[in-house]
């Protein structure tokens, strides 16, 4: 029942978006080679479904691999930052630097180092996911209630087990916030990676279609990417909620 409800809302907002899209075209009279009509795009979407599916498969694998790696690495970094103060002083600036370097500036570099295969895209997605996770994780970890830490102390917890049983669960809401953000960033990471050099994937397809002025196809690829991104976000969101059954949101949830 609830799932059906959620589906309904997604469908509604999808329709709303299509309407908005159509409206923009009608109002601004933007030519179809800059913004094609939804109909044209949907047509291409159906017509070239196998092609799109192939490239989407590649990009989705990149995104998922990057997501897993990025979350793991981000978590590890957050832990390192929270536990080794000495490290923090030097690691934090580096972490920041890794973030403020525009990815596309080093994308060609990464691609040259890592080759034109999937690896470079996965690294790119990882890089882009890594920071939100590390940053919110760190912020969450260092705000654990003092009382719980005291309790862990008198209960004779090792730092490691204190981390697992106290600090991580306490940081979970903050971390979830970061992971949700990471989920939206991951697809862009992969696509930028493909843009810097690839021979398949949705980013590649979009670049190619764009160069050939097949704007319909480009937007169809974009649509697939957006749809997958939304799916990813909502799945992760559901997963995170399931991980926090005690965490009753004050406000009703999206679904």
């Amino acid at each position: 029942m609830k799932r059906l409800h959620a589906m309904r809302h997604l469908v509604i907002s999808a329709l709303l978006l299509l309407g908005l899209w159509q409206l923009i075209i009608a109002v601004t009279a933007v030519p179809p080679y800059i913004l094609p009509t939804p109909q044209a795009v949907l047509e291409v979407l159906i017509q070239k479904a196998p092609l799109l599916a192939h490239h989407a498969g590649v990009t989705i694998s990149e995104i998922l691999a990057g997501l897993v790696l990025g979350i793991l690495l981000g978590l590890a970094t957050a832990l390192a930052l929270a536990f080794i103060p000495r490290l923090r002083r030097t690691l934090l600036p580096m972490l920041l630097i890794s973030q403020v370097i525009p990815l596309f500036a080093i994308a060609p570099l990464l691609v040259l180092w890592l080759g034109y295969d999937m690896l470079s895209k996965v690294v790119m997605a990882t890089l882009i996911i890594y920071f939100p996770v590390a940053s919110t994780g760190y912020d969450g970890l260092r705000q654990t209630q003092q009382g719980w830490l005291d309790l862990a102390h008198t209960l004779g917890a090792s730092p490691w087990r204190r981390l697992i049983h106290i600090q991580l669960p306490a940081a979970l809401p903050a971390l979830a916030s970061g992971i949700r953000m990471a989920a939206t960033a991951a697809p862009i990471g992969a696509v930028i990676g493909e843009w810097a050099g690839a021979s398949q994937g949705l980013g590649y397809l979009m670049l190619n279609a764009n160069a050939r002025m097949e704007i319909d196809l480009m937007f169809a690829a974009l649509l697939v990417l957006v749809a997958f991104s939304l799916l990813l976000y909502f799945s992760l969101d559901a997963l995170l909620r399931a991980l926090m059954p005690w965490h009753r949101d004050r406000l009703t949830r999206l679904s």
Partner: protein
Amino acid sequence: MSLGLTLNNARIDYAGHTLFRDISARLEAGSWTALLGRSGCGKSSLLRLLAGLEMSDLHQLDLATDDGQPLTDRVAWMAQQDLLLPWRRVIDNLWLGDDLRRRPRNRKLAHELLAAVGLEGREQAWPDALSGGQRQRVALARTLYQQAPVVMMDEPFSAVDAITRLELHDLASRLLKGRTVLMVTHDPLEALRLADQLLVLRPSSLPGHGAELERLPGLGAARPVPLDDPALPPAQAQLIARLRDSEEAA
């Protein structure tokens, strides 16, 4: 299982202000000590200091155990706030210590204790769904579950009703037999029923020394002293008067 403690030179300063200094006390092995004093005089802070918890600012303590071993890992601490972990169900909060030390859980004991504090059937509830007194009882059960030789409890019965409180006195007396117990309480009757000695933290006569510790003997009877023990009412009246006096002396 019994472990006596001697503390000397206890001192705590907060932000340049001395809470107390040069405080000494003896907690006999297997005895109960009630710690009393005005709100804000430093009882919780003293408990934290003894439990080896992190303190801000300046602090100092010479703590000797009777067996010469460090106290670490042998003290159970029940804080003034219940400190239940919201992501653990009631029963999971009980064996938090096992999980933190990687010891096997004692399911039987956990269930028994929850039943004893009147929470049978609520084992799988989230702490957020409990009333204030229920939460405090879970925290008490968690402290008892630890079976530590030294137990420090900060106002452990403050949030429960009078009847439950009496029941918990019985329960604690039974389960903490032979342990060295230091308990903060605001209830003179409770102190007299349970404690072998009473320590009153009261304003020191020396300027700049903050509070000092006054030792009063307990009733010396069985624990808990029965409510109808004739010695209880006069002792209670005397203690209240004493608490009021120590206030006025400052």
